[in-house]
């Protein structure tokens, strides 16, 4: 992976992983991530920001910010993963590279609470209006508990494992044949 | 004096009763006809009655101001007035209405009365769709007004009179005397204009439900809407009677019931034509319908008028 090799001379990047022939991931440090992305865009032709998302690794107590870029000439995708700690999480904005990133950042701020200082419209409502609790997509947010507390669950509702339920009620006696 | 006034009032009531019921039933029937074309069963023919009753039975309502309140009244007054200035049955005292007040010019301009009132009411509602609908409607109106007025001018020139009664009188004595046959270009122009006047497809841009939810009456509801629906029926009836009088010999028979039957048959056919066109063609945009009316229909009207000039 020439790009990785060249970039690694300048920046703190590591863990190159080939998912497919046309899809690679590597990790970048929080400090160098934007520089790496800039190089990828300006120098190596990864001009398209396919998506930008966050994975909450609660166990490791870190977020994995994943920038997925695409190179139209090589038909190659490059995922840049940035690990950041979950406390007071903040990341540099990349809206100056891709204006569309502002929307991703707005959504991530709302759903995960990751701050992107300077990103336009960061605090405007995205999908939620007036959310007051901790960001709902964080894994330490208990959505069932929240729903029970907030949305008046109808009493008498039963939940079943579909597999077990179907075995017992719909096809009694045939279970062994499965 | 008092007797004559009371008699006139009674006649007016009868005339009103007849046109209201006939028009409502006609609307219901035509909805059924449309449903048949689309392969449905369609609503009951009396559905318009139920709708009007229901709307008037609404328990609450809002008003945006005095003109909003008066808008439907203006509209209904326009429809009623238009109807009352047209003689329905030729030679009948009961159905002569108030046609002694003025001629076809009065009728043509009284049509504006209701439109203006409605436009004002819709305007005061403050909803942007209302004036959009009004602007479209008025723009389209000026366009079909041109062929229509040319047709009327041609007919008036043909018989040397603006009086509807005289125009009908001149057409008596058989179908070959109808304007439709003596002055076919005028009839053609007038009937094409009638398509726009009845606001059916393809000229239904005013209410365009998918785009500007039903246009001017967006904010109208409850008894306001009931009144508008009543007007829709009466106004339609009035326009059809006008066209029947102008182009198809009116309705005349010594027996008033047979005469009414003739009227019903002719207006039914006139409306059926509108509905057939409506179900066959998609909707025009405003500027398209303006171009349409200023094209072939105006040309036909011009031919009719020039025929009278030379």
């Amino acid at each position: 992976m020439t790009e990785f090799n060249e970039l690694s001379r300048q920046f703190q990047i590591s863990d190159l992983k080939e998912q497919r022939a046309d899809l690679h991931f590597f990790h970048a440090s929080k400090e160098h991530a934007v520089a790496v992305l800039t190089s990828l865009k300006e120098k190596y032709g990864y001009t398209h920001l396919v998506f930008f998302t966050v994975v909450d690794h609660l166990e490791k107590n870190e977020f994995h910010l994943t920038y997925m870029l695409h190179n139209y000439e090589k038909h190659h995708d490059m995922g840049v993963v940035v690990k950041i700690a979950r406390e007071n999480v903040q990341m540099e904005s990349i809206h100056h590279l891709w204006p569309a990133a502002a929307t991703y950042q707005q959504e991530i701020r709302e759903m995960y609470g990751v701050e992107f200082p300077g990103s336009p419209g960061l605090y405007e409502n995205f999908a939620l209006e007036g959310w007051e609790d901790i960001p709902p997509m964080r894994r330490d947010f208990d959505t069932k508990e929240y729903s029970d507390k907030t949305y008046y669950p109808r009493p008498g509702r039963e939940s079943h494992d579909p597999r077990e339920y179907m075995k017992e009620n719909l096809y009694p006696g045939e279970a062994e044949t499965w | 004096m008092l007797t004559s006034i009371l008699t006139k009032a009674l006649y007016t009531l009868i005339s009103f009763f007849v046109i209201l019921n006939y028009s409502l039933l006609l609307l219901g029937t035509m909805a059924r006809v449309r449903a048949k074309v689309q392969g449905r069963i369609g609503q009951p023919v009396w559905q318009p009655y139920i709708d009007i009753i229901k709307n008037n039975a609404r328990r609450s309502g809002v008003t945006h101001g005095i003109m909003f309140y008066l808008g439907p009244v203006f509209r209904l007054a326009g429809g009623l007035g238009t109807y009352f200035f047209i003689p329905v049955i030729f030679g009948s005292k009961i159905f002569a209405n108030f046609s002694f007040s003025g001629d076809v010019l009065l009728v043509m301009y009284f049509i504006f009365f209701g439109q203006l009132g409605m436009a004002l009411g819709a305007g005061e509602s403050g909803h942007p769709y209302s004036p959009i609908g009004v602007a479209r409607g008025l723009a389209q109106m000026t366009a079909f007004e041109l062929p229509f007025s040319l047709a009327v001018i041609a007919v008036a020139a043909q018989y040397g009179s603006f009086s509807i009664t005289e125009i009908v009188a001149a057409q008596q004595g058989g179908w070959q005397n109808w304007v439709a046959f003596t002055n076919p270009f005028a009839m053609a122009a007038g009937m094409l204009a009638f398509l726009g006047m009845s606001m059916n497809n393809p000229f239904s841009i005013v209410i365009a439900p998918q785009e500007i939810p039903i246009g001017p009456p967006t904010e109208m509801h409850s008894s306001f809407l009931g009144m508008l629906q009543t007007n829709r029926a009466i106004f339609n009836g009035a326009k059809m009677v006008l066209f029947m009088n102008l182009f198809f010999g009116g309705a005349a028979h010594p027996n008033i019931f047979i005469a009414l039957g003739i009227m019903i048959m002719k207006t039914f056919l006139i409306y059926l034509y509108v509905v057939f066109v409506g179900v066959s063609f998609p909707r025009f945009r405003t500027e398209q319908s303006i171009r349409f009316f200023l094209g072939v229909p105006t040309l036909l009207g011009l031919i009719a008028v020039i025929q009278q000039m030379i």
Partner: protein
Amino acid sequence: MSDNMNDMDQIQLFNDQGRLLNAGLPDEEKALFCDAAPQVDAPYRGIWEKFLNWARSESLWILGFGTGCGAIELRPLMTSRYDMYQYGVQPRPTPRQAGLFIIGGYASVKTMKRIVRSYEQMQGPKFVLGLGSCTVNGGMYWDSYNTINRLDHYIPVDVYIAGCMPRPEALLAGINELKKLIKEGKGENANKYAENFEWYKRNQKKIIKDWNMPDYNW
């Protein structure tokens, strides 16, 4: 629902004169909205009201709220296969003119705000039809952080149609059920809403946090 209708949180909706406080609106916008509270409109009595109820039941004008998947089941009703027009039912594009509010499936909090607004803009008597399990108890979204579980805690519902999704036939059955209710004089949920206005408002305000509208949308 009666179990907790009297269980009020401390949200003040009215002042001493019984006018709405419109606490959610900024001051400069208060003059732009009507601040009157909804009122109960008593029905007439006897045969006259029965006649009117018949007319109401035979002329149901739908306001379809199609943000859930149930909306897709509304469309076939208009086609020649189901032809709802023959039952006196027809769609209507504006809440002012519609009498029947069909909630087409799950309602997120964001959607709920619009549902409340549209419902209040309809003129009474008005009826609500909850379409699909999501409106009954949240359906498959029952534990979502953003989707309501019970529609009848926010607006009064006349008829629920269970299923995920119910077919158009079920919808027609529900409409027929509603007609029966109306004819029996049981379609008075608009009044119920006005009577229990504070309870409904409390529930609504509990989930709708940015309340940038008057408490009652005329």
